[in-house]
């Protein structure tokens, strides 16, 4: 059961993603995505009641609170307009903010839009060092690469994964991305290509790590009445949930911790609630596509396990057997190529929603999975401490009262 009003996603838009856009400003990129989503929804800007802007740290692109600059370009001037920011989970959280605009009954049509230019800074990992605690963590060489490498080492130790198994994730993602015209990285590479790429931080090699992407994404959300009038095949937003952890990784492991850091099990808590809202009781049989926030090759396995697609420590073996492959697997994981191939941080979570929605709406081109009824899109951010889970479906779940929020 969900909110008071049914929420449908009726339009999607995304630009091509690449390292630099020398021919467009930040706000022009955001406008491109907004225009694409509006066109897809068959709407004029004047039909949009409110705008939610998706943007994570602005230090990458160099203009503080850059959403204010973009207000007019995404047709938000004169309208209710707000920005949501949850680090890497921003796009997922922004979608949830758009959702409550409509589920509350306050608005009919909401544009959720954002853009990022991560490569505007010469050293994104320096910026990402500044996210840590000033007194205890800055002076370590801690950034998102080394942080997640530590978690990957712990996951490998707990479940016995190998670098080869992570390399197969990269090979599958790059191959899937070949069918996605918007993806940043793509290609027919081999496990050896991944293993032989330059070492960055054990177990990571360069190919295990996402690119720094520039680009934009947008969706149009509407209530049921508008969706019926405007869209023959909407993607209904049937489950939305998020969970936040402490920043301190050491507090998220060991016998006294509520959760296990290396398992990404905050995502399990959020998924449990989102599935409850959407009426998903058996993800493996009810969900056909998973679009994950997986900027590193090591993220997929613990995330798939947290989402309930298999037991702890089982995802790698299923991967080896082709169980997550695009057209022949049991669940298509990252048919777009996912975050490993495209990571404009401030909108990546929204790109995951766009790709998951397109699968429900039958608009994924050569990467379209057959018989899609439900998809799940995730986002993760901070010290892998913010997680969002969104469940999209071809049918809507009945509106009604539910008491949300995961409790431990």
């Amino acid at each position, binding site marked *: 059961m969900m909110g*008071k009003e049914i929420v449908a996603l009726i339009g999607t838009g995304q630009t091509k993603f690449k390292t630099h856009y020398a021919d467009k400003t930040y706000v022009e990129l955001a406008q491109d995505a907004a225009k694409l989503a509006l066109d897809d929804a068959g709407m004029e800007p004047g039909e949009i009641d409110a705008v939610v802007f998706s943007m994570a740290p602005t230090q990458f692109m160099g*203009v503080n609170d*850059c959403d204010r600059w973009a207000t*007019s370009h995404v047709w938000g*001037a004169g309208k209710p307009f707000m920005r949501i920011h949850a680090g890497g989970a921003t796009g997922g959280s922004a979608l949830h903010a758009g959702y409550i605009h409509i589920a509350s009954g306050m608005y009919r049509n909401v544009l959720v839009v954002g853009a990022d230019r991560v490569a505007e800074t010469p050293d994104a990992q320096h910026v990402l060092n500044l996210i840590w605690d000033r007194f205890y963590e800055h002076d370590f060489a801690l950034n998102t690469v080394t942080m997640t490498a530590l978690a990957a080492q712990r996951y490998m130790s707990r479940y016995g994964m190998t670098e080869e198994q992570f390399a197969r994730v990269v090979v599958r993602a790059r191959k899937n991305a070949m069918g996605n015209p918007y993806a940043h990285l793509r290609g027919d590479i081999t496990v050896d290509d991944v293993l032989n790429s330059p070492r960055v931080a054990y177990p990571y090699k360069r190919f295990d790590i996402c690119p720094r992407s520039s680009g934009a994404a947008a969706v149009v959300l509407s209530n049921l009445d508008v969706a019926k009038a405007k869209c023959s095949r909407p993607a209904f937003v049937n489950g939305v949930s998020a969970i936040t952890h402490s920043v301190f990784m050491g507090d998220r492991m060991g016998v006294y911790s509520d959760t296990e850091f290396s398992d990404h099990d905050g995502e399990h808590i959020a998924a449990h609630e989102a599935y409850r809202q959407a009426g998903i009781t058996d993800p493996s049989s009810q969900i056909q596509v998973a679009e994950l926030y997986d900027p590193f090759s090591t993220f997929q396995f613990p995330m798939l396990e947290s989402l309930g697609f298999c037991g702890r420590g089982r995802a790698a073996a299923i991967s080896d057997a082709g169980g997550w492959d695009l057209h022949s697997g049991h669940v298509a994981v990252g048919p777009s190529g996912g975050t490993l191939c495209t990571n404009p941080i401030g909108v990546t979570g929204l790109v995951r929603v766009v790709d998951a929605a397109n699968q429900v709406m039958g608009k994924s081109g050569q990467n379209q999975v057959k018989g899609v009824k439900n998809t799940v899109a995730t986002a993760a951010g901070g010290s892998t401490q913010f997680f969002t889970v969104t469940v999209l479906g071809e049918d809507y779940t009945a509106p009604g009262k*539910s008491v949300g929020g995961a409790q431990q």
Partner: protein
Amino acid sequence: MDVFIIGQAIHPPAARIGDKRLEELVFDTAHAALADAGVRRAQIDHVTIAGCDELDGRSISSMLLAAPAGAQLRDEMKCTDSGLTGLCVEAMRLESGIFELGLLVSWCKPSTAPLEDVMRMRCEPFYTRPIGLNMAITDGLFAQAAGAEYGFDEYGADEAVQDCYRRASHNPRGMRHAVPGVADIATSPYVAAPLRRAHQAPITDGAVAMVVVSGDWLKRNPRARPLARVSGIGWRNEEYDLGRERLAGLKSFRGAIGDSLGRAGLKDCGALDLIELDSQTGFHELAYRAALGEQAPAAISPSGGAFAQNPYFCTGLINAAEAVLQVAGQAGPVQVAGARHAMAHGCHGFAQQGNVAVILESA
């Protein structure tokens, strides 16, 4: 709207809160709000936070501040526009029917991140950054345009500022700045003509938190005593570019107020007992008063508004907390007799690009 505030806390302001880390400031405020509401953190099902990375001096500041704000293992959402926008987000989350009991926390500690440095970097790099635009200059442009539109000048602003300080001097939750003489204001140095230094509300550190619940939760918990009902919310943005119409039109101010009145079922601001304005300068105070016109309620900013305390990002939410106290009859020396309907206003961005309005009613 079926949304109620059952507890809140305003951290004592200071020009510089030097004895606490930002995490401690946030934790103490969130903890005090929960205590005021008589609920435990374990009971809340979500957290909304409103904060600004740049003013916090950290990228993704919620990484360190979400847990002190009570969000450990909770569904948390952060907006970056203003503290009062956070109250709008929180109200929508409850109205959506998914949540029932939430904690809203907002803070600002500009003593560690100089406001004007942050604002200068809000300029886009092609036109406004090279010419050195900043907050003071945009406020000066606003003062010129609004003064021409509504017929006031800097002498009027001098008197308006003194009046703000006079009201603020009675507010026990404010800084209790000394009330300056008009001559002192009129001879303070220009920062961007006609804006003088003394026309600007002094920036402070501060934080505020509220415990907010749905009507359903309140029915099931009859021992809880609501302080106020959130009956109307509205927020609008305007263009980033500063043309004359943009500066003097006050479109988003009027729009946000109109939206909140409509949701509250009120005809106009004349139905309010008071409004707490977010006037960052004396010119803002005059412009907002002019825009309210004859419909203005009898009491305007009894708390003194930004001249009582001004933790810039969350000053609007401080206004909401003051409005809650008013309709609960707990505003102390600045209480407006018989107050039942109060509006809190907040603004944000260059020359108030965004405006927010929330109406609180006696519960």
